[in-house]
């Protein structure tokens, strides 16, 4: 799998060499930071709250965070495969001695790094919180593990969209539709009847993150994200491999 690592490294260098990376990260940090600021002020002003109500959890209850995620996640992945196809460079990749598996995994690995680079700076918020009060380390760990697994799923969906689309724009639109669609579907957990709600709880990203921030990392949702990733990557590999038979 050396090929995958070589591809991932190039992809990462290319991403961080482009202005797009810094625009996305900057806008994201403005959104995340403003939300965090709002929550901290809110907690500072209102006195009595339950033990499970923490600024961390409050932060992951902010709708703006999710809106930003649904917009930015597809931007991170849109370029990966669609651009190779759009430019015709895919021929150079597929005729080099690397398998479609290595190509897709390399692009995916790089996308995960992009995802983590969005979130890494927000660890600083936790540092600020810890300066002024007690922070539940377990909850922080579970929140960021939740973020990681969310990325595992989201980046795979994005890479699949990029494998299917012939342009970056189409890839981004496809991924946004898929991610926003499942996100809204997941919210159905709160309004649907018991049996249906139980099923929808699997795809409820909002509930997944909100609970993870409270220190409860539901294994069902981890399994959901991991299996989404496995399925999407499998399909992306098939799509790339199948190009030969076009």
């Amino acid at each position: 799998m050396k090929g995958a690592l070589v591809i991932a490294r190039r992809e990462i260098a290319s991403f961080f060499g482009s202005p797009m990376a810094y625009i996305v990260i900057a806008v994201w940090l403005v959104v995340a930071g403003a939300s965090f600021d709002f929550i901290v002020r809110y907690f500072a002003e209102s006195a009595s709250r339950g033990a499970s109500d923490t600024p961390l959890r409050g932060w992951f209850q902010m709708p703006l965070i999710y809106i930003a995620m649904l917009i930015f996640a597809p931007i991170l992945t849109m370029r990966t495969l669609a651009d190779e196809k759009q430019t015709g460079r895919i021929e150079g990749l597929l005729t080099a001695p690397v398998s479609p598996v290595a190509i897709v995994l390399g692009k995916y690995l790089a996308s995960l790094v992009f995802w983590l680079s969005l979130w890494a700076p927000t660890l600083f918020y936790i540092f600020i919180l810890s300066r002024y009060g007690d922070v539940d380390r377990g909850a922080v760990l579970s929140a960021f593990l939740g973020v990681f697994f969310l990325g595992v799923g989201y980046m795979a969906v994005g890479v699949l969209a990029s494998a299917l689309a012939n342009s970056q724009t189409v890839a981004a639109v496809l991924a946004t539709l898929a991610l926003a669609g499942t996100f809204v579907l997941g919210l159905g957990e709160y309004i649907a009847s018991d049996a249906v709600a139980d099923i929808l709880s699997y795809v409820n990203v909002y509930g997944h993150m909100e609970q993870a921030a409270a220190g409860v990392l539901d294994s069902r949702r981890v399994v959901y994200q991991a299996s989404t990733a496995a399925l999407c990557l499998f399909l992306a590999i098939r799509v790339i491999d199948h190009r030969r038979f076009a």
Partner: protein
Amino acid sequence: MIEVESLTKRYPSHEAVSDISFTIERGEVVGFLGPNGAGKSTTLRMLTGFLAPTSGTARIDGISVLERPIEAQRRFGYLPEIVPVYDDMRAYDFLRYRAELKGLSYRAAKREADRVLELAGVVEARDRWIAKLSKGTKQRIGIADALLGDPPILILDEPTVGLDPNQIRHIRRLIKSFEGEKTVFLSTHILPEVEASCSRVVIIRDGKKIAEGDPRKLREEAEGQMTIVIEGPAEPDRYIEALKDCAPVKSARRGEGRSVEVEAMPGDESLDAIFNAVTAQGLGLRRMERRAASLEEVFVGLTTVEELDS
């Protein structure tokens, strides 16, 4: 060694490559000649594993490209029609990346990148952004890419496209220098390219192989004669008789129906001479048409003058 056996690529609307077969032995430099759109790139794509053939097989050193693509791909360097460079990389970094992709270690990749920059004559572009390079330089970086890892086989799709005359000379010398050492298969629509670098040529048109052999001999063959079909009210034998002493005519024989097929020297003067010889005998003439030999037709479709293309 490259073996192509009844290779065919069929699309819903048309057949891009039909039943092409040829073999290229180790150390040969072979040209793949044909007009634009003849199916050259499609053939090379099947040969390199980018496209799967509808039927037929392509083998590299005996390894089926379709069945064991990675193993086959380790043995050749390939310059695709679209040079797969990234605009946001420097030439040297791109080649190092490609070398690692082809399985070289980090250190070997660094060494190889510099070696191929030198071979392809693009050392001056080493530390420049690819986006800023001219088309000819990008093309030569693509050639450098194909040379990474010193593969025993080179498959080059129109290697000199976009190069200036000096650069063309450099690349042709380079290709020529591989003769006897590497197996080279290069496609082109430029006749002098084949004559300059190749010991053998495979000619393709409309997806079909129409000739194979020594490029100069084939050219002479194609240019050396022309076929004219004539027909009139008199018996065919009388026309044949009338053309016996006509200078540009090499031979005349009965054709389909009442027609006569005449082999003559190429050129419009031959047409005049045939007409005069026939009418001088008082024979009528109702039909006279030039039937181009398929090989000649191909050469007509090719770019025969360098300047047109560079």
